[in-house]
C-alpha cells in the first residue's frame, strides 16, 4: 500500500477504535496512540522523501499513486507529495498530536469530541496529499464540516452563533471554489480530448485567458475565505474565540493553511496568466489583511481575539507572499505557513490552559501569572517572541524570507506594499509585548490566582512538542528551506514563464 494512503487510513482506523472504547481514559489513550503513530508516520515520510530526493529522483511528485474512481468523468484518486506538501503534512501531524493532549481533560461527550477532531484531521491530511481536484475538494469540505459540531457542542461564549457563522462563511467560500473547479475541469484539456481533474495534467495545458480571468477570482477568494483574506475574515475571530482549545489550535494552525496552500497549488499554479494580471487587486487586499489584522489585535482585550486577529495578519502575509510570485517570497510563504501554524497552535493551547485555570480570558483581569504559572509563562513568552520575529525562532526565518523576496520587485507598487506590510512587524511587537507585560508580569490582581497549579504532564507534552518544532525551524531552517525550494523551482518557473502578459503595474 502507498504510504500516503495510510495518512487517511490511520485516522479512520483510530475513529473506529474510539467507537469501541469504554471510558474517557481509553478514548484519549486510543486517540493519542493513533495520532502518535501519525506523527511517527510523517517523520518517516520526511525521511523517505529526503532519501528519495538524495537518490536523484527529480519527479515533481513522489509516492505518486493513481486509481480511477469515476471513469466517465475521469475522476481519479490521485495522490502524491512534493516538498511543500510533505512539510504541511509534518505540520498537521504535530499540531494534531499536540491538540489531542491539549484536550486531555475533555469530559463532555468525549468520544464524539475526539472522533470529530480526528475526522477533521483526516480531511486535512487528505487535502494535502490529493492531486485530483475532485478529491481535494471532497477533503476540503470534510475538514470544514466537523467544525460546526466541535464549536457548537464544546465551545464557549456565543458558540452557536460563531459555529454557524464560521460554517456558513467557509461553505460560501467553497461555493466559489466549486464553480472554479468545474470551470477548470471543462478547460483542463484541449477541446476534444479527455477532460481531467488531475492537477499535474491540467498544468500542462493552458486554460484560455478569458476563462482564467473569470475563474481566478473565484478560486482565489474561495480559498482566501479560509485563509482569512480581508474582508472575508470575520468568521475567524468569532470562530476561534468560541472554539474549544484543540479546535482553535487545529483551525488556526492547520485549517487556515488550506487556504494558502490551495491558492498556491490551484489558483496560481493553474492560472498564472490571470494571476499576473489580477495580482495587484489581491495584493492590496492581502496587504490590508496584514496591517488591519495587526491593528485589530492591538485593540482587543480577549486573549483569543488577540490571537485570532494576529492570525488574520499572519495568514494575510502568507497570501501576500504567494502573490509576489518569486522563488524567495514563495519559499517564505510556505515557511510562514508552517511557522505560524506551530506558533498559533501553541498560543491557543496556552490560552486554553490559562483560561482553564483563571476562567477569564480578558487580559485586564489578569496579571503576574509568571509567578504562579512559571512553565506556562515561559512558554508564552517564547511563543510571543517567535510571533514577533525574534531571530533563532521560526517566525524570523519566515518573515525575513518573505520581505526579502517581496523587495526583489523593483517597481514602486510592490515596494510600497512591502514597506506597508513590513510595518506589521512593529505592530505585532506592540500587542505581543503588551499582552506579555500585563498578563505575566506586574501584580497579581486576583487572590484566587495564587492557588493556581502549573502545567500538568500532558499540557507540558503538548506545548513542548510545538515549542521544539518552532525552535528547530528557527535554528536550522535550511533543511526545510531546501526541501521546499527544490519543489518550488519548477513551479515558479512555470508561473513566471508566462511573462508575455504584463500586470497593471
Amino acid at each position, binding site marked *: 500500500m502507498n504510504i500516503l494512503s495510510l495518512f487517511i487510513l490511520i485516522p479512520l482506523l483510530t475513529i473506529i477504535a474510539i467507537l469501541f472504547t469504554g471510558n474517557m481514559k481509553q478514548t484519549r489513550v486510543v486517540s493519542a496512540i493513533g495520532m502518535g503513530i501519525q506523527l511517527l508516520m510523517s517523520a518517516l515520510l520526511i525521511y523517505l522523501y529526503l532519501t528519495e530526493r538524495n537518490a536523484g529522483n527529480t519527479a515533481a511528485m513522489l509516492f505518486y499513486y493513481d486509481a480511477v474512481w469515476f471513469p466517465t468523468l475521469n475522476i481519479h484518486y490521485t495522490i502524491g507529495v512534493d516538498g511543500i506538501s510533505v512539510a504541511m503534512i509534518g505540520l498537521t501531524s504535530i499540531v494534531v498530536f499536540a491538540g489531542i493532549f491539549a484536550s486531555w481533560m475533555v469530559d463532555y461527550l468525549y468520544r464524539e469530541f475526539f472522533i470529530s477532531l480526528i475526522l477533521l484531521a483526516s480531511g486535512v491530511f487528505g487535502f494535502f496529499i490529493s492531486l485530483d481536484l475532485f478529491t481535494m475538494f*471532497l477533503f476540503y469540505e470534510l475538514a470544514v*464540516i466537523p467544525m460546526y459540531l466541535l464549536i457548537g*457542542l464544546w465551545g464557549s461564549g456565543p458558540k452557536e452563533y460563531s459555529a454557524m457563522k464560521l460554517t*456558513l462563511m467557509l461553505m*460560501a467560500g467553497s461555493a466559489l471554489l466549486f464553480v472554479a473547479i468545474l470551470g477548470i475541469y471543462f478547460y483542463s484539456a484541449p477541446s476534444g480530448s479527455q477532460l481531467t481533474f488531475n492537477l499535474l495534467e491540467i498544468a500542462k495545458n493552458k486554460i484560455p485567458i478569458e476563462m482564467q480571468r473569470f475563474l481566478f477570482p473565484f478560486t482565489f477568494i474561495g480559498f482566501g475565505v479560509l485563509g482569512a483574506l480581508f474582508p472575508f475574515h470575520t468568521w475567524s475571530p468569532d470562530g476561534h474565540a468560541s472554539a474549544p482549545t484543540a479546535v482553535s489550535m487545529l483551525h488556526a494552525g492547520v485549517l487556515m493553511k488550506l487556504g494558502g496552500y490551495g491558492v498556491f497549488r490551484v489558483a496560481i499554479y493553474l492560472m498564472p496568466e490571470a494571476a499576473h494580471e489580477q495580482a495587484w487587486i489581491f495584493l492590496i487586499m492581502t496587504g490590508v489583511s496584514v496591517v488591519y489584522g495587526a491593528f485589530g489585535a492591538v485593540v482587543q482585550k480577549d486573549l483569543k481575539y488577540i490571537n485570532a486577529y494576529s492570525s488574520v495578519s499572519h495568514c494575510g502575509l502568507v497570501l501576500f507572499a504567494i502573490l509576489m510570485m518569486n522563488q524567495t517570497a514563495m519559499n517564505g510563504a510556505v515557511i510562514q505557513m508552517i511557522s505560524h501554524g506551530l506558533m498559533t497552535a501553541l498560543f491557543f493551547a496556552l490560552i486554553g490552559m490559562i483560561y482553564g485555570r483563571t476562567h477569564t480570558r480578558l487580559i485586564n483581569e489578569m496579571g503576574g501569572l509568571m509567578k504562579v504559572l512559571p512553565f506556562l509563562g515561559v512558554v508564552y513568552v517564547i511563543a510571543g517572541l517567535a510571533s514577533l520575529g525574534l531571530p533563532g525562532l521560526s517566525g524570523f526565518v519566515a518573515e525575513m524570507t518573505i520581505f526579502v523576496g517581496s523587495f526583489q520587485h523593483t517597481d514602486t507598487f510592490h515596494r510600497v506594499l512591502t514597506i506597508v506590510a513590513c510595518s506589521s512587524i512593529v505592530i505585532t511587537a506592540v500587542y505581543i509585548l503588551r499582552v506579555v507585560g500585563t498578563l505575566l508580569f506586574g501584580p497579581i490582581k486576583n487572590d484566587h490566582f495564587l492557588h493556581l497549579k502549573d502545567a500538568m504532564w500532558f499540557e507540558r507534552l503538548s506545548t513542548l512538542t510545538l515549542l521544539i518544532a518552532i525552535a528547530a525551524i528557527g535554528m536550522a531552517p535550511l533543511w526545510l528551506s531546501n526541501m521546499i525550494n527544490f519543489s518550488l523551482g519548477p513551479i515558479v518557473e512555470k508561473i513566471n514563464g508566462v511573462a508575455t502578459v504584463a500586470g497593471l503595474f
Partner: protein
Amino acid sequence: MSIYDFMTMRHELILVCLVLLVLIIDLNLKKSQKHRIIPIAISLFFIHTVIGFLPAQTGELFGGMYKTTGLTILMKNILNVGVLIILFQSTTWLKKEENGEKISEFYILLLSTLVGMNFMISSGDFLMLYLGLELATIPMAALAAYTHHQSRSAEAGIKLILSSALSSGILLFGLSLIYGSTGSIYFDTVGALYSNAPMQVLAFIFFFTGMAFKISLVPFHLWTADVYEGSPVNVTSYFSVISKGASAFILIMVMYTVFHSIAYLWKDIVYLVAVLTMTIGNLFALRQKNMKRFLAFSSIAQAGFILLGIIGGNKIGMTATVYFVLVYIFSNLGAFGVISAISAKTGKESMDDYDGLYATNPKLTLLMMLSVFSLAGIPPVAGFFGKFFLFTSAASGGYYWLVFIAVLNATISLYYYLLVVKAMFINKNDTPIAFFKSDIMTRIGLFVCALGIFVIGFWSQVYEFIDKLTFAIIN
C-alpha cells in the same frame, strides 16, 4: 403477439397482480387480524422488487405506446427500492389502533399510484403518459386524506385533488395543441415534427407547466406545503420522494426526446424556473418549524437542483439526474424515516421537540444528521456526489452563473439543515423525547437508508451503470 411479448410489461403486470392479491387476502382476514396484511404485503413487494432486478427483455407494445428500455427498467427499479423502504418504515404507524381496518387500503392505493408511475415512465406517446399520470394522481389524493378523521388530512386530500385536476387540465390543453399542430401523439413523430412555431412553443409551455405542478416547481408549488403537512408522514415521504422522482424522470425523458428541437428555448425557461425554485424554496424553508413542512420546502429547493441536470442537455445531465434522484431517495427517506418513527411513537413533529434528541436516541439522531448532510451535499455522504455531478452537467453547458447561484443556495440550505443538527445535538431540553425502540421492520427501513447514504457515493459503479443506459439530447 404472444403472451411472451407481454413480459416486457413485467413491472406493471406483477404490480397489478400484487394489488389484487392484497385485496383478496384482505377480504379473507377477520377484523381483528387485519394487521397481518403488513408482513404479507411487504414480502410480496419485496419479491416484486427482486424480480425487477432480474434480466428483462426490452421492446415496444401496442404499436409504440409502451416502451421498455434498459433505462426505464432502471428507473422503475429505483422507484421500487424507494417504495420498499417506505413500506418498511410505515409499519409502526400502520399498526396503530386508528388504522386498524384500512391497512390494506394503504397498500392498494400506494401501489396503484406506483403502477401509474411505471406506465408514465414507459410511455411512448402522450396518451399513455396522461393515463399513467391520472392513475398516479387520483389514488394519491385518497392517500393524502388517509387519516380522514383529522381535518388537516382531509384538507390535504382535497387540496391535492383540486390542484392536480387543474394541472392535468393545463397539461391536457398543451397535449391537445401538440396533437393539433403535429397530427400525432407519438413521442418519436412529434419530436421529428416539432419546431419553434408559436403554437408549438405555447404547447410546450402548457406541458411544462403541467409537469411543474407535479414536481412542485416555483411558481406552481403552492399546494406542496399544505399537502405535505396534512398527510400522514409516510404518505408525505412518498409524495416528496417517489412521486417527485418519477416526475423528474419523465420530465427529463420527454424534454430530451420530444422537445429537443426547441432545446435552446426551453433552456432559458428551465434556467429561470430553476433559479426561482431553488431560491424561493430555500427562503421559505428557513422559517419552518414543523419538520414535515420544513422538508416540504427543502424538497422544493431540491427540485430546483434537479433542473440543473436537465438544463445540461447532455449525457452527463441525464445520468446526473437519475443518480441524484437515487441519492435523494435514500437521503430524504432517511430524514422522513426518523420523523415518521418519532411521530408514530410520540406524535411530535415540531423541530423544538427534537431538542436534545442525541442524549436519548443517538442512533436516530445520527441517521437524521447523515440524511440532512446528504441533502445539503456535504461529503463524504452520497448527497455530495449527487450534487457535484448535477452541477457538473450544468457547467458543461457553460452555465457557470447558474451553478454559482445553485451552490450559494446549497449554502443557504446548509443553514436550515444545520438548525436540525443544532436542535438535536446542541440545544438543551428538560423533557427530550424519551428513548424508544421502533419495531424491527421500521428499523430495517432506517438501516437501509443509512447504508445507501454511505455506500452509493463511494461506489462509483452505480454511477457508471446509470451512465451506460442514459442518452443525450438527440440532434
